[in-house]
């Protein structure tokens, strides 16, 4: 009996916490799909409307921000795949002089991420004329210690015999990489890609510093500019904008929930 009682208590506590966790988002959805007059007035029969989304969309160049973010996250991901693959492959399969030290130095970036060094990195970008460009926003993140680490572990776990067999058949280094390693590491690339895309979709400080025009601003910065400058305090519209900027990731997450969680795990366990 007391066992059952405690089960009920635990379930209740879990649901209470779940409710608290879901509340901010549910609240935002409520505000976004109802007229402003109902944003703080919970009437179940309040009329539904898409008007707030339309107003947010018209009030700021969100279409351009979306384009910038998509270009940014895809560009970063593609560049990361190439650069991290090459480095990880070298570190996993070539016992070259200084490789161990090099790997240790690469891992430093896990702690000292580019956003800690904003002052110097801004100066570097300024010197090469990349301020206010998407390339400038992405460049410091392209060689990712995390990606190199993840792929190196994966490549190391691939049996050496497969590598040797491919070479016996006369495959070059590049061919071995493309035909043996990449196909076997596919799930890891999916995981890394998802983590990278969600990280850079949400990244804020560095793009805020580097960009200063509509043509380069990603969604997060655009949203902040919109919420603090363009808009008075109309919470319905701000909530609509906030939901809109998160929508693609949220929808992807809802559809591929299991894959997402698995990816974060795969990427996190090291």
């Amino acid at each position, binding site marked *: 009996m007391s066992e059952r009682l*405690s089960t009920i208590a*635990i379930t209740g506590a879990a*649901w209470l*916490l*779940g409710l608290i*966790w*879901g*509340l*901010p*988002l549910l*609240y*935002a959805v409520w505000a976004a799909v109802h007229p402003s007059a109902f944003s*703080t007035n919970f009437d179940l029969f309040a009329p539904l409307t898409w008007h707030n989304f339309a107003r947010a969309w018209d009030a700021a160049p969100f279409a351009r921000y979306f384009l910038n973010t998509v270009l940014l996250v895809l560009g970063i991901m593609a560049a990361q795949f*190439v*650069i991290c693959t090459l*480095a990880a492959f*070298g570190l996993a399969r*070539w*016992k*070259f002089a200084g490789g161990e030290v*090099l790997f240790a130095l690469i891992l*430093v970036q896990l*702690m*000292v991420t*580019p*956003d*800690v*060094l*904003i*002052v*110097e*990195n801004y100066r*570097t970008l300024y010197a090469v004329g990349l301020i206010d460009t998407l390339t400038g926003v992405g460049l*410091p993140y392209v*060689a990712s210690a995390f990606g*190199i680490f993840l792929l190196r572990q994966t490549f190391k776990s691939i049996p050496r015999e497969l590598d040797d067999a491919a070479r016996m058949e006369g495959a070059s*280094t590049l061919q071995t990489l493309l035909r043996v390693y990449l196909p076997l590491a596919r799930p890891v690339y999916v995981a890394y890609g998802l983590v990278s895309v*969600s990280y850079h*979709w*949400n990244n*804020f*400080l560095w793009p805020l*510093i580097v960009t200063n025009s509509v043509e380069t601003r990603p969604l*997060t*910065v655009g*949203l*902040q500019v919109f*919420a603090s400058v363009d808009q008075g305090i109309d919470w319905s519209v*701000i*909530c609509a904008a*906030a*939901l809109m*900027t998160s929508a693609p*990731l*949220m929808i992807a*997450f809802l559809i591929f*929930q299991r894959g997402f969680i698995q990816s974060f*795990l795969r990427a*996190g*366990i090291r």
Partner: protein
Amino acid sequence: MGSTRKARLNIHVQGWLLALPAVALLATFTHIPAVTTVLDSLFSTPHGRQPAAFIGFGQYRTMLADPIFWRAFDNNLLYALVTVPVAIALALVMALWVNGHIKGRATLRLAFFTPTILPMVAAANIWLFFYTPGYGLLDQIGRLFGFASPNWLGDPATALPALMAVTVWKEAGFFMIFFLAALQQVPPDLYEAARMENAGRWQIFRRITWPLLMPTTLFVAVNALINAFRIVDQVIAMTGGMNGGGPDNATMLLLFYIYQVAFSFWDTGYAAALSTVLLAVLGTVALAQFFLLDRRIHYR
């Protein structure tokens, strides 16, 4: 003999060539700037025609006498001391719930994890609404129970805790995932054996689950600690843009102060000194992890 030596040389060259693009980029955006930051902190900020001059520890003397720096430092320490344990404890509880046979576990998992996917800026703007004095949800609930409505973000006493709540809300679900994975690796026969011995829930957790989760807890703690010292999005989005930092600098944190000093006051020398402090903090966390914790858990 000659050809094997050549082949061996070839291996070194190929290895370095493969790593070269990554090495060049990492050096440009991580290692070299880290070193120049430390060096720059020993110079004054150049003004117009007046170039930077070597002033030794001058910037650090300014820092020691700067109440805003101390505010940021203390706030950040407090931020880490509160958010890291709370987020980890909640993450663990969430994982235990979602891993068990609780009703509606899929929905619960979704509710817990969703904040992780939201951009911090979007989440911050939603929470801003949440905290609005007068008609925000928190006040409406408070009024229901007859509490007076505080100005959560406007009052120096509540502004920092209000930001902490957002951080815990955002991070707990993310950490939950790691505990969940670890829980699924616990051999089920351990639990069966414990049940045969009539061990209670708490005993099973204390004697079996908790010790087996230790490596995960440490891993999560290190990551949470690093994050806590790099928090800045909430401060910008929730307590007043570039010149903000909250009422009476109540939400001033290290990275935000660096951002403000560098890009609002354009005092790059002082910003370099502040960045050096942040680097030192992160370095300390790294060293602690390296020496105190079992290395195999993390990097092999």
